[in-house]
């Protein structure tokens, strides 16, 4: 186990270094100069030159990269060009919103995707299977932004049932709290108005995000269930008169879940991607929203910081998934 972990962590470091160098190069070769934005529309050449010097942009690219890595090793992600604050503080402020959104969406994906997949497999080639296929495939095929705008149009503009933007209603004060997760904070503060507002604001973005990420899970559960259901031990279980529910959930699903776990781990990546569009459409003040703002400003330190943190989250989630294999399938051993 320890050996496995060490190997995985080492691999993670390699991935990390790759992401770092690639992002650094890509963001810095884009034509454009953040100093010009910082300096404002009417800045003189001297002001621009000074700002460029302050930001270290006048140095050769390899030197800039070396400086960045040195600061990173000290735990410093640099100062955002746009907000003039430490990038780590900006990310810490925006992270809870994204975490709340993606985690709840992941739970919905799991909670809806597994039963739908099982249903599809059990009722193969019948109406429920076709319906679940339509749901899953439409989720991946419809463009996220279009679906998001449609949801806003129907539920906010036409019907007025659900809010279309932000995390709270206009007049509601955010719950006090440390986590920044409004669900947790409002419950902790017993602030029911904030809780209600938070839940209402979560509905549309969570629906959108989980809907578009549902397909791989449903399809994977379906196909592995079909495979498992054809096996001898299932026939044996049924033959000895076991309740169908136990056959499906204790015997079949557990074995069908192993490949599904991988897909769920990967779908966290899809969720993070989908969050970019979802947060933009719903004005959800999370990391992706911050990332989009930073990119249009050529805010190198912010873009680098977000990319590294996203890579960290993604690789960690997949590490956890690998470890979970052992829990789901006792035959799997790490060494």
């Amino acid at each position, binding site marked *: 186990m320890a050996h496995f972990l060490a190997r995985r962590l080492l691999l993670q470091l390699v991935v990390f270094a790759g992401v770092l160098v690639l992002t650094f190069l890509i963001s810095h070769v884009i*034509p*454009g*100069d953040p100093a*010009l*934005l*910082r*300096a*404002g*529309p*009417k*800045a*003189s050449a001297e*002001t*621009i030159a000074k*700002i460029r010097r302050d930001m270290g942009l006048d140095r050769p690219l390899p030197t800039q990269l070396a400086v960045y890595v040195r600061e990173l090793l000290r735990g410093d992600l640099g*100062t955002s060009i*746009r*907000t*003039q*604050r*430490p990038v780590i503080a900006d990310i810490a*402020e*925006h992270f809870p919103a994204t975490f709340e959104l993606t985690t709840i969406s992941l739970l919905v994906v799991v909670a809806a995707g597994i*039963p739908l997949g*099982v*249903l599809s497999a*059990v*009722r193969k080639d019948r109406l*429920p299977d076709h319906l679940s296929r339509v749901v899953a495939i439409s989720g991946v095929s419809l463009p996220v932004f279009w679906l998001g705008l449609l949801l*806003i149009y129907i539920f*906010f*503009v036409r*019907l*007025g*049932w*659900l809010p*279309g*933007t*932000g995390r*709270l*209603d*206009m*007049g509601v004060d*955010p719950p006090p709290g440390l986590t920044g997760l409004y669900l947790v904070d409002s419950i902790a503060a017993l602030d029911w108005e904030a809780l*209600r507002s938070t*839940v*209402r604001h979560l*509905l549309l973005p969570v629906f959108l995000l989980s809907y578009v990420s549902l397909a791989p899970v449903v399809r994977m559960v379906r196909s592995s269930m079909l495979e498992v259901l054809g096996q001898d031990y299932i026939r044996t279980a049924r033959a000895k008169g076991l309740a*169908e*529910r136990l056959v499906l*959930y204790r015997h079949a699903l557990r074995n069908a879940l192993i490949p599904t776990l991988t897909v769920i781990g990967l779908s966290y990546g899809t969720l993070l991607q989908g969050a970019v569009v979802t947060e*933009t459409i719903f*004005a959800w*003040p*999370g990391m992706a*929203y*911050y990332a989009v*703002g930073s990119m*249009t*400003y050529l805010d190198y330190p912010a873009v680098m910081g977000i990319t590294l943190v996203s890579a960290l989250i993604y690789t960690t989630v997949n590490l956890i998934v690998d470890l979970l294999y052992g829990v789901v399938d006792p035959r799997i051993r790490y060494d």
Partner: protein
Amino acid sequence: MAVRVFGWMRAVVPVVVAALLAAPLPAGSAQATPQDVLIFGSTSDVETMDPQVTVDNIAWRAIYYCYDRLVQLKGGTTEVAPQLAESWTISPDGKTFTFRLRRGVKFTDGTPLDAKAVQFSFTRLLKMGKGAAGLWDGILDASGITVVNPTTIRFTLKTPFAPFLGSLATDQASIVSPGVMKHETGGDMGQAWLAGNSAGSGPFRLKEWRRGERLVLERNPIYWGRKPALRQVIIRNIPDPAVLRDLLERGEVDMGETLTDDQLDALKGKPGITVFEAPSFLVTYLYLNNKNPYLSKVKVRQAISYAIDYAGIIRGVKKGRAVQMRGPIPQGMAGHDKTVFQYTRNVARARQLLAEAGYPQGFELGLLIDPGIREWADIATIVQANLAEVGIKVKIEGFARPTMRAKLDKADFDMATGFWTPDYPDADMFTWFWFYSKNGGLAGNRSFYVNPQMDRLVVAQRQETDPAKRLALFRQIQKIAVEDAVYVYLHQAIYRIPMRERVQGYVYNPMLLFMPNFNGISKRP
């Protein structure tokens, strides 16, 4: 069998459905906000709260009323009136300004606001040398700021600068408390801290800011002047204009910007909504890069100026909400000459000028735009069609803002679209910046125009202390600027802002674009 398998879902689904149904409220019934709280919807977020860093109007909106300045703009005018300075004297050579300060003013952090504090504030601004300091480049440095006594401060300029007094009313001239130095980290003069806090003496102070979500200003309890009627101003970040429009209609937002002209037209006449309209100093124009061999010829630039359908652009792009410019200085700005020649569309004259310039067959030019700005994309299409008629083939080149700006600064373009707003209330903003040969690039002379006679004139008006003589200089400048067709002077926009009818006391000042007077606004019950 499957029915039983999904039995648990039968229990869960009704709960979820009930929660969904219980949640909705009928449209428009969201609780009305308190009478002393203004909810302002903004489609862009603030980048930083440090007045000595940012040059962004959206940030200024949140910052401006957290601070005082030595002088202020009187109501909706461009006239300068006392604020922290009770009175001032100007030396005959126009280089020394001495201000007598109001006594007993304190910053929200408790630090007394005296001459030393004012000196600190300007020193911090100039020492940091961020974009916000750009206004005083080559005009003022830290050694020119002297504390005469605790209530008297003197500024000695390196060169006479007629607009100096007006420049002290801008957001960049906000007086920042020396208390920020307590929050200094790594020699940043408190920048990291002030980016997310306020340290002024103005009618409001920053209470809370959740980035991308909302920014709350609260009344400054120890404000020296008239207390604002509003206890709080909540600036909500609502990036989608369509959503903002809807929230305004429902009354969940009291005021907001920026909506498109179409949306404003749709809002107008809706019950409970007013759309305020007035001319602004926001001008739209085309840069004609004089380094381009074609555009270096006056006749070519004049031909382009004749070929453009100004009225068509105003009608089609601005839905009539703009007036055509007449030279560089906009209407309403002191110095504007309403007799200077104004180009109108004349295709025959344009063709004739091109032939005289030696290009009867025409040529090809690029037109640089940021396609993210809808107005520019629309203008580009019309300009392309207009110039095609006289034989100039236009290739529209769209680049994202940072790239476009880099290209502008390096003269790597032929023609480009642009906006300009004045930072201080003076025609200097439309002359020295636009035509002085040393300002080539982003600094302001975006046509890279070089004319020694013009250089002399734009510098002379800056140093002229006699208002009548200055006006005469501005007349000469405008005449040359139009004859030489340095830019294509398109139009000056009409500023529009929607608000609920219950919002009272709004005063528009064209110099404070996107910065409503939160200190004077109140709400009817």
